[in-house]
């Protein structure tokens, strides 16, 4: 498979790509897994307020060893810090904030995203797996813009961008942009548009790997 030797974006590089699309003053929630890496890449010259579903607005970077407080954690239960100006609130308030349309952007991981923006990220079809949903379904509906950050392909080389999700849905028609190790894509009314991709690929190769119709950049 020709794509096995590609120079891909590593998770930090994907995080840096996402950050380019987060403007000054944005209120942003980061899902567990790969999106949490974004908190360590926020630019110093832009003020961005990170919301954590467990009741924190103004979340700072992950805590260094000497800063660890077990009562101050992010959605993945990792110790974090608070920025000056942070606020704390209870869970019902946090999810009222989330569902109420107050977040500008939410970044989630995914198993699959369909061409019309359906998101599958909470359970696989493995009967033995323990189902767990957390805040994903609330976040998918509540944020004004939903970004997905994920690997472009499964471990078996199958595209995670599909015509129709095969895994149980988290929410329908919610994803706006997809950031992967190979490319940045936008879900538009007329289809999936390629925004940018790694230098090792031509557009036609990206389209072939992705396995769904892709629109060329505007």
């Amino acid at each position, binding site marked *: 498979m020709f794509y096995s030797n590609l120079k891909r974006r590593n998770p930090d590089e994907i995080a840096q790509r996402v950050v380019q699309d987060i403007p000054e003053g944005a209120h942003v929630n980061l899902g567990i897994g790969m999106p949490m890496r974004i908190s360590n890449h926020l630019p110093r010259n832009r003020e961005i307020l990170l919301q*954590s*579903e*467990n*009741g*924190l607005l103004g979340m700072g970077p992950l805590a260094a060893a000497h800063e660890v*407080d*077990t*009562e*101050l*954690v992010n959605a993945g*239960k990792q110790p974090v810090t*608070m920025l000056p100006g942070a606020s*704390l*609130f*209870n*869970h*019902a308030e*946090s*999810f*009222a904030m*989330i*569902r109420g349309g107050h977040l500008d952007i939410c970044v989630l991981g995914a198993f699959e995203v369909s061409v019309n923006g359906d998101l599958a990220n909470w*359970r696989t079809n493995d009967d*033995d*797996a*323990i*189902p*767990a*949903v*957390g*805040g*994903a*379904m*609330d976040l998918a*509906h*509540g944020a004004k813009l939903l970004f997905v950050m994920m690997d472009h392909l499964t471990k078996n080389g199958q595209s995670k961008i599909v015509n129709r999700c095969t895994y*149980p*849905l*988290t*929410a*329908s028609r919610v994803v706006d942009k997809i950031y992967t190790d190979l490319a940045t894509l936008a879900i538009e009314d007329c289809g999936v548009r390629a925004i940018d991709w790694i230098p090792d690929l031509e557009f036609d190769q990206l389209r072939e790997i992705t396995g769904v119709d892709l629109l060329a950049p505007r």
Partner: protein
Amino acid sequence: MIDKFMASAEQAVADVSNGSTILVSGFGGAGLPSCLLAALVRIGAKDLVIISNNAGNAGNGIAQLVAAGRVRKIICSFPRQPDSGEFEKLYRSGAIELELVPQGTLSERIRAGGAGIAGFYTPTAFGTELAAGKEVKVFDGVGHVLERAIRADWAFIRARTADRWGNLTYQKTGRNFGPVMATAARCTVAQVAERVELGSIDPEHVITPAIYVHRLVKE
């Protein structure tokens, strides 16, 4: 004189009976009322229904209750953790029932329970497996799911400071479900790190007003 402080955690949970439904605060370990759970492990009530964000992990109090076979059902949003083996074993063998609820729906169901609201419509989970069998309705073109309120026999929560009336403040993200759960139980028991004099918490800074708290235990 009102004094809701009790001598020990055992005393505070001694009358939890078999079959009780218990709200347990905490997000992972943050805000988890570990002293109350340890006392509950010791007193031996069984056939319990536990409502919490997680299903216990790393041998914590919920994990111990689960491992001891004392929990009939867990209502939670995220039972899958790298170290939640006790729950996973029983779940796979069918020995424990799981009601999986999206996290915001869980907190709002509890809020509704404490606020005298029977149910509410939310877009969360519309069109997914987690809405199966539930009444749905379209508002302004958006599908919504009818969710019912949750009330419980008990709420076990953790707070930072309490006065003898039961006014509470919390510790950072350890606050999480505590203030909401406190409102939705017949008897709310708060485990607190510090007891302070009545009047020493600025009324502007009280997070949970005393009316919601029935028993207090100093850690």
